[in-house]
């Protein structure tokens, strides 16, 4: 949880509902609101010239989306799209900054949160710079697993579809499927009922 929901609501946030594949904001839009997910899953993505999707991040309950862009004078560099039914709190930018100005602790929390996002990007950029699909996929799984308590082999059930894993690593889904099979053979992952254990 980034900001307590009651604090957001008392500051004037409204709850909005989105259906799967509904867009919360588009790339190029000017940011006017702080968004925080109450329930559901949202992806931040881009489409390249050929219409191929690249997923920057998948966010869920209690996470904010696109908050970093509120701090700089730029349009959104990504789209935000609901994956599941979502209920999202939305607070106007000016009310959001009033809230922060009243509470230094909140400022610090936002800093930690932004830092966490940046940390993810340091890890992911490193693996994306590789042309090797197996390194890209391992980078993603290592990051996801790093927040788990149990770090023993095959203890982590990767909570993503093959398509999502491909879109998060800039690979074609066929390449992702083939590479995951190779990784099973090399005992990097285990596959049970199509689920990937890392």
């Amino acid at each position: 949880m980034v900001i307590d929901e009651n604090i957001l609501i008392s500051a004037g946030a409204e709850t909005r509902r989105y259906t799967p594949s509904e867009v919360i904001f588009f790339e190029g839009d000017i940011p006017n609101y702080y968004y925080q997910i109450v329930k559901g899953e949202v992806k931040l993505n881009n489409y390249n010239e050929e219409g191929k999707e690249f997923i920057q991040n998948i966010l869920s309950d209690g996470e904010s989306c696109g908050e970093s862009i509120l701090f700089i004078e730029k349009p959104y560099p990504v789209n935000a799209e609901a994956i599941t039914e979502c209920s999202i709190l939305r607070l106007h930018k000016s009310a959001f900054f009033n809230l922060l100005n009243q509470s230094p602790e909140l400022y610090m929390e936002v800093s930690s949160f932004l830092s966490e996002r940046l940390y993810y990007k340091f890890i992911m950029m490193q693996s994306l710079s590789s042309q090797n699909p197996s390194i890209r996929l391992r980078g993603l799984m290592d990051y996801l697993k790093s927040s788990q308590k149990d770090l023993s082999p095959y203890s982590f059930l990767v909570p993503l579809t093959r398509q999502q894993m491909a879109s998060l690593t800039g690979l074609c889904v066929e390449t992702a499927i083939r590479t995951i099979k190779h990784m099973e053979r090399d005992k990097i992952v285990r596959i049970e009922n199509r689920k990937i254990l890392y």
Partner: protein
Amino acid sequence: MKTISCMNIDENLLYSFGAENKGYKKHESVFREEDHAFYYFQISEGKVKLNNYNENGKEFIHNILGKKQSFGEAMLFLNQDYPINAICLEDSRIIRLPKNNFFEMITQHPDLSLEMNACLSQEIFYKLKMMQSLASQNPMQRLKGLLDYLKSYHDEDCHQCFHIAFTRQQIANLTGLRVETVIRALKKMEKEGMLTLKDRKILY
């Protein structure tokens, strides 16, 4: 080349909270991957690159920073070790402030918190742009992503007059490409009228 000054804290304020100014030689590292984060670092003179090496020893550069820019500050807010190395590209002078003093300074100067958030956001913005271009298998697409980003911090909007002050090798390491691929792709981009090459200089 113009760089964004982020997080550019007044040097006298840093000293008043106990910062020291330390000299580093070219190629010397300021911190290494997996080190704990103990200091806030801000460059007063020189240039620093943030990088990783993959299993085959190939270098990937995350960013190149200059005068009045800070680096690695995100790790001060997290209980995570550095995921990167910081290495001086030339003889440099760097101001470092111990972590606890840094937080004391931010607490006493709340305006710095806002600036800190803006600065972290700026870095996230860069990475959102760069990740998108890195996801592409097309070298020209990757290069265009980097050039567009660098140019977006240029004051005047001009046609092919923005000088990209990086070496071919640095550009290769910033985009995860081989230097031969960069040289070939740059020539192709010139032929397609996307940029100008003049005395080996890249104008975009």
